[in-house]
């Protein structure tokens, strides 16, 4: 006597399960952050590099010990990719002569507004940047043109010394 096939096979799983396998939508980046910053808009080439850093968590070239700091990234945008010469003063809280150089740099920033950019960097807050540029003595002022360091002025010197270096950077840049 042939066995009667009374049991039916289990029904196939509901079709909706297959739709659930779709890839999740990628997370949206926070508004106003990253590539949408004004600096990134101004320098499209920099935005790609900057965005690459944000997405792939690439270490910045200017953090030799692998520290990933926004400052190192901002450095690349504001200094390396600047279209006009840049002056950076390296200082520390309890460095007495730094106070004198502060005043000189503040005056220069006003007198050369639009023709150069002036920034100050606290070496205690951002030691990697200071280390990557071999800063030893403080105060040290660096000048950059087209992303290259053109002058390094160490110690407390008369304002004319800084002005001379700046004028040279500007005239070279305007050729």
């Amino acid at each position, binding site marked *: 006597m042939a066995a009667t096939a009374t049991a039916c096979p289990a029904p196939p799983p509901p079709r909706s399960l297959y739709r659930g396998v779709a890839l999740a939508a990628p997370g949206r980046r926070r508004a106003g952050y990253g590539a949408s*910053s004004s600096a990134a808009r101004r320098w499209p080439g920099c935005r790609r590099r900057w965005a690459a850093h944000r997405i792939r968590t690439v270490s910045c070239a200017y953090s030799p010990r692998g520290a990933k700091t926004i*400052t190192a990234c901002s450095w690349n945008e504001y200094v390396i990719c600047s279209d006009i010469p840049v002056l950076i003063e390296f200082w520390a809280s*309890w460095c007495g002569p730094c106070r004198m150089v502060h005043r000189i740099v503040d005056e220069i920033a006003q007198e050369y507004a639009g023709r150069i950019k*002036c920034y100050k960097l606290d070496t205690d807050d951002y*030691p990697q940047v200071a280390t990557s540029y071999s800063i030893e*003595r*403080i105060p040290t002022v660096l000048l950059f043109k087209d992303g290259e360091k053109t002058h390094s002025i160490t110690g407390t010197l008369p304002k004319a010394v800084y002005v001379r270096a700046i004028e040279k950077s500007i005239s070279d840049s305007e050729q």
Partner: protein
Amino acid sequence: MMSMASTTASPFCPSPMPRGRKCTVRVQAGAAGADASDKSLEIMRKFSEQYARRSNTFFCSEKSVTAVVIKGLADHKDQLGAPLCPCRHYDDKAAEVAQGFWNCPCVPMRERKECHCMLFLTPDNDFAGQDQAITLEEIKDATSKI
């Protein structure tokens, strides 16, 4: 803490998160500054006066420079055990203290009377003042305006 005031926007804090981190660092630094003891400040003040007299050097004509450096030395003495020069950038402060080259008075000062902090200035230096004395009040006044 030294102000980051500048006529241009700070490029080093383009978004809230780094600024927050930086505030943390600043708070710590501020706390460290607040921890600088009057005892160390007085020790470094006395040392500076004595050393200026012994080495025939003079404090800066702008006494706030002198005051800030002495404060920096006192901070390092409290934090590191020795008055490491506050006008240099170090990769490893503890190692530098152990080596001693930049402990005040540093080797360049001892050997050649070269003090890039402008704490001890030879009489011929353009910035040299007439004083070999500074009061604790002068130091506190000059270093409380941060």
